[in-house]
């Protein structure tokens, strides 16, 4: 194994030094070592620009939105609604009416499962998901299938961690009422051919929901190009705050779906006899929204755009290539998920060791990785393993940090031998 330590700024379009300065948390030390944060797939860190936007909002602009006649409320409403416009432009949605604020990806999926399911899924119908879904894209559909007496079917995953597209095609039929798959696997990093999958599903008139949580921080997503009927993602995985996410839905579907939760904001008129609902997008936004979260998400998207998502993707891809190469050369390391198309996620095991032990030792070296089943137990069962060690990259990670990971893995594997 060769260790390189001076990759910083070589062949980098990204101004890594500046970027790392934007993320104050990266200055922290863990157990006496500089923090090496390799868990961005769970949640990315936040740049000062996002932190300041939230802080300034509370200092200068906060009031409840969509209801005050006074100037402050109007300013808050404008700032919050500007986030909706920012999201709409960023994902290239056809209109702001198609951009619904939710608490996160999980709530977005639950909203569609519940609301679409209530209206369109009936006894004997099928719901199609894939074998590499996060629990958040499994359990809501199980609940809906149980409730509607429908059947959940699973697209199989190959040994390298790709979806079996022939099997997928065979599974399509008029009985399938919706398909829910991730754009990028959180455990394997596999980028799924979602555009192609949507095209095939639409031949049967089946709508498709894409869980884009792991795609948004790494690639430009054009929802009209992908042409999915729903696309959901969380702010906190794309350098924005926790507690807010987006459900994009085609207007034609959202119009036909009943509201998910009742309350303020989502109504037009309320009497004790009957309530009429507000129009899109507010029909699905009961209660006071996460206004500060919206302001933060706006700043995060701006930060991604200013930095350049292509540049970020290229940088992360270099980290992936280098990390894959260097970890493969460590004796006993087995990579889980070696799809052709991947984002910066490396899941691996060390022969005869348990992921927990490796994670505990890496932690002592200041290296933050995720260990366990990554909320994808069925996928772990598919590979017959209890879990993996997962290193996932963000825009701020360096080649030097990949070296530290590899050295840490060698160290752990020696200690545990």
């Amino acid at each position, binding site marked *: 194994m060769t260790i390189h330590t001076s990759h910083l700024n070589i062949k980098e379009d990204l101004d890594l030094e500046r970027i790392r300065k934007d993320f104050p948390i990266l200055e922290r030390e863990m157990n006496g070592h500089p923090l090496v944060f390799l868990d961005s797939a769970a949640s990315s860190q936040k740049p000062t620009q996002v932190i300041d936007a939230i802080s300034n909002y509370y200092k200068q602009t906060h009031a409840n939105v969509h209801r005050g006649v006074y100037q402050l409320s109007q300013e808050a409403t404008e700032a919050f609604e500007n986030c909706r416009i920012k999201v709409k432009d960023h994902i290239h949605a056809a209109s702001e009416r198609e951009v619904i604020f939710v608490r996160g990806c999980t709530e977005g999926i639950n909203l569609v499962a519940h609301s679409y399911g209530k209206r369109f899924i009936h006894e004997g119908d099928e719901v199609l998901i894939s074998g590499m879904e996060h629990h958040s894209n499994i359990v809501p559909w199980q609940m809906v299938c149980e409730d509607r007496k429908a059947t959940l079917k699973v697209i199989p995953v190959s040994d390298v961690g790709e979806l079996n597209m022939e099997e997928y095609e065979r599974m399509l039929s008029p009985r399938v009422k919706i398909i829910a798959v991730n754009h990028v696997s959180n455990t394997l990093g596999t980028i799924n051919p979602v555009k192609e999958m949507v095209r095939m599903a639409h031949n049967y008139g089946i709508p498709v929901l894409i869980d884009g949580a792991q795609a948004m921080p790494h690639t430009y997503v054009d929802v009209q190009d992908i042409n999915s009927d729903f696309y959901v993602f969380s702010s906190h995985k794309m350098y924005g705050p926790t507690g807010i996410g987006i459900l994009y839905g085609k207007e034609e579907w959202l119009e036909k779906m009943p509201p998910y939760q009742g309350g303020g904001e989502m109504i037009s008129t309320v009497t004790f006899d009957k309530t009429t609902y507000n129009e899109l997008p507010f029909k699905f936004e009961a209660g006071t929204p996460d206004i500060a979260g919206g302001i933060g998400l706006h700043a995060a998207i701006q930060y991604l755009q200013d930095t350049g998502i292509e540049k970020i993707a290229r940088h992360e891809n270099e980290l992936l290539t280098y990390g894959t190469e260097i970890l493969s050369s460590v004796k006993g390391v087995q990579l889980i998920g070696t799809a052709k198309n991947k984002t910066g996620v490396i899941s691996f095991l060390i022969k005869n*060791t348990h992921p*927990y*032990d490796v994670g505990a030792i890496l932690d002592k070296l200041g290296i933050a990785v995720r260990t366990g089943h990554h909320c994808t137990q069925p996928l772990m069962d598919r590979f017959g393993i209890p879990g993996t060690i997962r290193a996932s990259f963000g825009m701020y990670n360096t080649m030097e940090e990949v070296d530290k990971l590899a050295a840490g893995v060698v160290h752990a594997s020696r200690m545990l031998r």
Partner: protein
Amino acid sequence: MSEKINAIQDEIIEEFAFFSDWMERYEHIIDLGKNLPLIDKKYKTPDYLIKGCQSQVWLHADISNDGILFSADSDAVITKGIIALLIRVLSDQNPEDVANADLYFIDAIGLKEHLSPTRSNGLLSMIKQMKYYGLAATKAI
């Protein structure tokens, strides 16, 4: 408070005082884990499993008039090493003392992070379960 239990805890703290850094401590824990006597195969079943999100623990208690004998296992070796220490402290003790034990040694030897609920390694539930056995046996006797 059982003096017998605390004497063993103090003994462990003294042993660990010889180690100068985390690496030596972990190496020792790993050794303890590797040398933990195997649990009887018939107890390594779902009935005896304490499922953690990260690692899993199997625990069996043999309750007799003389006290409780614990045997346990885990799929992770660091977890197993801590199990070895817990067994050394709590096994073959009076049930009431097990139920009331204040396990201060884990913090004192710098392993408290392994008992954090976010680690979800089954250890916290294991200690709870050991104490339940102690409580149940106290009532039974």
